[in-house]
C-alpha cells in the first residue's frame, strides 16, 4: 500500500508512537502501583529481620525467638510468666516482651467473634438462599451490605460505652436473652403451624425474617422481665457474686463476650454475603432433583445444597476469621486492653492490632519495641494474606465445579 500523502503517513506514525508510549506508561504505572502494594510485605520483613540479626542498641541485649514466645522469669514472680509490658517507668526495670499474650488475645477475640458471627451469618444465608421470597431478598442483601459498611469506631463506641455497662448492670437479663431467644423462635415456628390457614398465608415463611422482628422484641422484653426471677431463683439474687464464688470467674466490664458480640456484628455481613453467594450459586437442577424425589426444602439443603456449597461456606468463614483477627478499633474500644492470658469469657484481652495502634506512635523509631510491633503487623499481614488466598483458591475451585455441574456461571 503506497502512501497517499506524506502528512497522513506522519500522522499515522504519530498515532502509532502515541499508542506505544501509552502502552509503556500503562505498563510501567500498573506494575509500579502493584509493586507499591506488594511492597508492604517486603517492608515489614526488612524492618523485622534486624530484630534477630543484631544486638539492638536501646536495650543492650538480644531478643531471641524463644524469649518472645516462652514464659520468662521476671523479678517478683516465682514461676516464669508470659508478660507484655513494653514501657517501663524506672531505669532498673526491664521492659517485658512476651508476644504470647498478644497472640492469645487476638485469637480469643477472633474466636468469640466467630462464635457469634458464624451461626448468625450461616443461618441468615441459608434462610435467604432457600426460603426467603425474592422481593424481600433483593432488599435484605443490600441492607446487610450496608451493615458491613458501618465503621468499626462506631460499633466499638457502642460496645464499649453503651453495651458493656448495660450488660454489667443487667447480667442476668443478658443471660436470659441468650437462653430464651432460640427456643422463643422455635416456639414461634410451632405456633405458626397451629395458626388457621388464612392467617398463615398472611405470615409466610418467606417473609419470616421480617415478621419475626416484633416477636423477637417481645422475647427481649420477656427475658428482661424474667431476669430478676431467674437471678433470685437460681443464682441467689446476684449472678456476678455467683460467678465469682462458684466458678471463680471475675467479671470485667469490657470482656471477651462484649468484644465477640460487637465484632461478630461487624464480621457477620461479610460472612453472610459470601456464604449466600455460595449457596444460591448451587445449580438449581440439583435442588430441584432432590425436591422432586420428595425431600423437604430443609432436607434438600442439608443433604444436597450444603455439601455442594461447603467449600464456599468454608471460604466465607475463613474471610470472616481474617477480618476478625485484624479488626482494630472494636477490640481497642471494647476489650479493656489488658494483656491477660485467661480462658474466661468475662476477662478482657489485648490484641496485636490494638497494641500496634496504641503503642506504635510512642515507640522509638528503630528500637526493639518498634520492631516487635512491626513483627506483630507482619504476623497479621501474613495470616490474613494466607487465609484470604486459601479462601480465594477454594472459591475458584467451587466456581469451576458449579460450571461443570451445568449451573449458572
Amino acid at each position, binding site marked *: 500500500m503506497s502512501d497517499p500523502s506524506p502528512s497522513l503517513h506522519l500522522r499515522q506514525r504519530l498515532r502509532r508512537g*502515541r499508542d506505544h508510549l501509552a502502552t509503556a506508561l500503562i505498563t510501567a504505572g500498573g506494575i509500579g502501583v502493584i509493586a507499591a502494594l506488594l511492597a508492604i510485605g517486603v517492608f515489614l520483613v526488612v524492618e523485622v529481620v534486624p530484630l534477630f540479626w543484631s544486638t539492638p542498641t536501646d536495650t543492650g541485649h538480644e531478643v531471641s525467638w524463644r524469649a518472645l514466645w516462652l514464659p520468662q522469669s521476671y523479678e517478683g514472680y516465682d514461676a516464669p510468666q508470659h508478660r507484655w509490658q513494653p514501657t517501663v517507668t524506672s531505669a532498673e526495670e526491664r521492659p517485658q516482651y512476651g508476644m504470647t499474650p498478644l497472640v492469645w488475645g487476638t485469637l480469643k477475640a477472633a474466636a468469640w467473634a466467630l462464635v457469634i458471627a458464624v451461626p448468625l451469618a450461616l443461618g441468615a444465608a441459608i434462610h435467604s438462599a432457600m426460603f426467603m421470597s425474592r422481593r424481600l431478598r433483593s432488599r435484605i442483601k443490600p441492607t446487610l451490605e450496608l451493615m458491613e459498611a458501618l*465503621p468499626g469506631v462506631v460499633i466499638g463506641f457502642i460496645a464499649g460505652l453503651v453495651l458493656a455497662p448495660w450488660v454489667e448492670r443487667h447480667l442476668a437479663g443478658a443471660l436470659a436473652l441468650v437462653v430464651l431467644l432460640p427456643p422463643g423462635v422455635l416456639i414461634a415456628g410451632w405456633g405458626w403451624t397451629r395458626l388457621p390457614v388464612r392467617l398463615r398465608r398472611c405470615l409466610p415463611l418467606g417473609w419470616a425474617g421480617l415478621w419475626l422482628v416484633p416477636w423477637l422484641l417481645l422475647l427481649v422484653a420477656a427475658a428482661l422481665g424474667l431476669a430478676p426471677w431467674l437471678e433470685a431463683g437460681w443464682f441467689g439474687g446476684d449472678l456476678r457474686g455467683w460467678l465469682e464464688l462458684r466458678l471463680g470467674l471475675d467479671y470485667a466490664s469490657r470482656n471477651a463476650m462484649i468484644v465477640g458480640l460487637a465484632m461478630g456484628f461487624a464480621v457477620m455481613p461479610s460472612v453472610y454475603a459470601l456464604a449466600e453467594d455460595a449457596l444460591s450459586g448451587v445449580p438449581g437442577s440439583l435442588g430441584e432433583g432432590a425436591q422432586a424425589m420428595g425431600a423437604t426444602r*430443609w432436607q434438600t439443603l442439608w443433604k444436597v445444597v450444603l455439601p455442594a456449597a461447603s467449600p464456599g461456606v468454608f471460604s466465607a468463614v475463613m474471610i470472616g476469621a481474617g477480618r476478625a483477627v485484624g479488626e*482494630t478499633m472494636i477490640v481497642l474500644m471494647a476489650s479493656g486492653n489488658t494483656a491477660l492470658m485467661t480462658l474466661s469469657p468475662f476477662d478482657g484481652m489485648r490484641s496485636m492490632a490494638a497494641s500496634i495502634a496504641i503503642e506504635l506512635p510512642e515507640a522509638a523509631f528503630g528500637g526493639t519495641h518498634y520492631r516487635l510491633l512491626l513483627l506483630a503487623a507482619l504476623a497479621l499481614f501474613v495470616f*490474613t494474606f494466607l487465609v484470604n488466598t486459601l479462601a480465594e483458591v477454594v472459591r475458584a475451585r467451587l466456581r469451576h465445579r458449579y460450571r461443570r455441574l451445568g449451573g449458572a456461571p
Partner: protein
Amino acid sequence: MMSHDLTRGEGPWPWLAAGSVALSLLMLGALLVLLAGRGLGHFWPAPVALVELENGRWLAGEAVKEARLPGAEGSGTRGRERLYRTANRDLDDGIWTWVALETIADVGYPDELVVLERRRWGDFIGRLMAVERDGRPLGEGKSAWTVLQARLVELEVLRDEQARLRRKTIMPLAARLATGPDAEASRDLARANAQLRELRAEMGRDRLVLESADGRRLEQPLVEVVRAWRPNAMSPVEKLAAWGQGVWRFLAEGPRAANTAGGVWPAIFGTVLMVLLMSVLVTPFGVLAAIYLNEVAHQGRFTRLVRIAVRNLAGVPSIVYGVFGLGVFVHGIGGSLDAWFFEEALPSPTFGTGGLLWASLTLALLTLPVVIVATEEGLARIPDQQREGALALGATRLEMLTRVVLPMATPAMLTGLILAVARAAGEVAPLMLVGVAKLAPQVPVDGDFPFLHLERKFMHLGYHIFDTAFHGGDVQAALPLVYATALLLVLVILVLNLTAIFLRHHLKVRHGALPRV
C-alpha cells in the same frame, strides 16, 4: 400431633435460620435507632426540673437517667436513684447530681428557670435575677429575660464586628509589619487595636445576676454567654427552632471545653479534605493498574496470581497499612524530605511526622485494591466485540481504550471510587499512626501560601469519636456529642454506600442490554 406437624413441614430448623435474619435486622435497627435517638435528641431542649428534697435542699437540672441503687431491693420508686444534670460547675465543682427517688419531696417545672451556655464553666441552670450595665440595672425580675435576649442579639453583632476587624484589618497589617518597619501600617494597627479595645470594653459592660436553685448568687459577665433559653417556657415550635439551631451549631462550630461541648466542624472539614485528597491520589493509579491487568498484561498464570494477590490485599487489616505508612511515608520519605528541604526547622519535624499528606497516601494505598477490583470488574463486563470492533476499524489500542472501553467502564470506576471513599471515611486505626490529631488548632487550609498545608495534622470524625469517648475527662458530659458525631459519620457512609449500590444497579441494567459473549 406437634411432632407430626414439625416433621411433615420443614421442621424446626428453618425457623432458627429465619430467626437469625430477624436478629441481624433487629440489631442493625437497634443500633441505628439508638444513634439517631441519642444523637438528635441531645439538641432538643430538655425540660428543667426544680426538685425539692425532703431535707429541704433545692436543685434544678435536667433528668438524664434512672438506675437502681447498688444492692437495693424492692420495686417502684424504692431503691432507685435519678441522675440530674445540674450544671453550674463554678458553684458545685461538678455538673451531675444523683438523687435517690425516695428523698424527693416535690418536682416542678417553673417557667422562669433559664439555661445559659457559657464559654467558661459549661452551662448554668438557675434563675435570672437581673441584667446590669456598669453596675446599674437594665432589667430586673420579669423584664430581665427580654432585656437579656435583646442584649444577646447585640452581643452577636459586636462579636461579628470584632472578628471582622481582626481578620480584615489586624491580621494583614501584622503580616505587613512582619516583613519590615512601616510607619503607616503601625499607625493603622494602633488605631485598629484601640478600636478592638473599645469593642471589648463595650462587650464587657454587661453583667448578669444569677441565682442557683438553692439560692446562691452569681455574677456572670455577659460576654461569656453564648446562648440562653428557658426550656420550660418554650412552645414546641420554639423548641423545634432551637433544635435546628443546635444541630446547625454542632455542624458549623469548633469544639470547646476539651471536646465535650461545641461542634465538630474542624473534624468534618478534616475528614472531607483527607478523603478528597485520597480520591485524587487513588483514582488514577487504581484505574491505571486495572487497565494494565485487564487490557495490557499477558493473561497468564502470573497475571492471575497478581490479581489474586491484589484482591487479597483488600482483606489485609487496615492497621498494617498504617504501620507501612508510618514506616515508609512518615519516617522514610518524610524524614528524608526534612533532611533535604526543612533543615532549618530540625529537630522539630515538618514532614517527618504524621500529617494530612501521609494520611491521604496511606488511605489511598489502603483503598487501592477496592478501586482496582471494581474497575477490573467493569472492564471484564465489556464484551470483547466492542474492543474488536474498534480495532477492526483501525483504532490503535490507546484510541480503543479512551474512546470505547473507558467510557463504558466509567460507572464501574465511580462505584469503586465511592466504595473506596466510604471505606476511607470510616477508617480510624491507620490514621492514629499517620497524622490525626485530637485537637488541631489550625485547619489545613487557610489564606497563607501555599493555602493547602499538607504537613499539618488534622481532625477526623472517627478519631474524634474514639478520643472524646475514651480519653475525655467527663465521659457522661461528652456522650451526647459522641452519639451525634457517630450518627453523622454513619449517615455520611450510608449515603456514600447507597450511591454506590444505586450506581452498580444502574450499571447492571445498562449492561444487561448488551449482548454477552
